[in-house]
């Protein structure tokens, strides 16, 4: 499947782009992270400490175990600091 993968804040800076198209067969968010981290040093650095990374699947907050079946847009970002 084809996913839009978005990055925000320092994840965007480390990856070097706000979004990318990804072709994957990953079944879960966690499997997708493993694939992305294996791509290159930038991805590996951005995704090295997952305790500092949050994820949304189709704009809903999700977990590493969240399945990707039917998903279109995955976003990775640091803990939020709104308000």
């Amino acid at each position: 499947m084809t996913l839009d993968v978005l990055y925000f804040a320092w994840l965007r800076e480390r990856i070097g782009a706000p979004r990318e198209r990804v072709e994957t067969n990953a079944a879960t968010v966690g499997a997708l992270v493993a694939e992305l981290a294996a791509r290159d040093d930038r991805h590996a650095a951005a995704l090295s400490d997952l305790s500092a990374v949050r994820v949304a699947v189709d704009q809903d907050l999700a977990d590493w175990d969240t399945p990707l079946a039917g998903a279109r847009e995955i976003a990775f970002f640091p803990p939020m600091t709104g308000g």
Partner: protein
Amino acid sequence: MRVLVQPQPFDAGALLDGFGAGAGAVVTFTGLVRGDGGLVALDIEHYPGMTERALAAHAQAAADRFGLDDVLVVHRHGHLPVGEPIMMVATAARHRRAAFDAADFLMDWLKSRAPFWKREIGPDGPRGWVEAKADDEAALDRW
């Protein structure tokens, strides 16, 4: 219910004109950019699309949970100089307890669940991303 996500300043007086008509209690919370340690501005990044959806969902959750007559959330993004308002929530209810608790609940949620990220700007440019506070995460457990 009204949710606004915008870069430009908001006119609190205009937004609150007629807000909560029929209610007995209106609470507002406004967050402003504090100039601590020579801070010049905050740059606020957000997740267009998800931000509006998440704010609307939580405004509705607060309205349902606290029996609100009305609720308003406005949150800015982009470059916000020191002293400027960042965001405001307003809650209207029959009685003060519900209005206070709903505003408090919405703020705890906004601080750690709304998709905004703040970067500090000093006199020499960007300093770094504001880190999430453990206190803010813990505050959510109250609800």
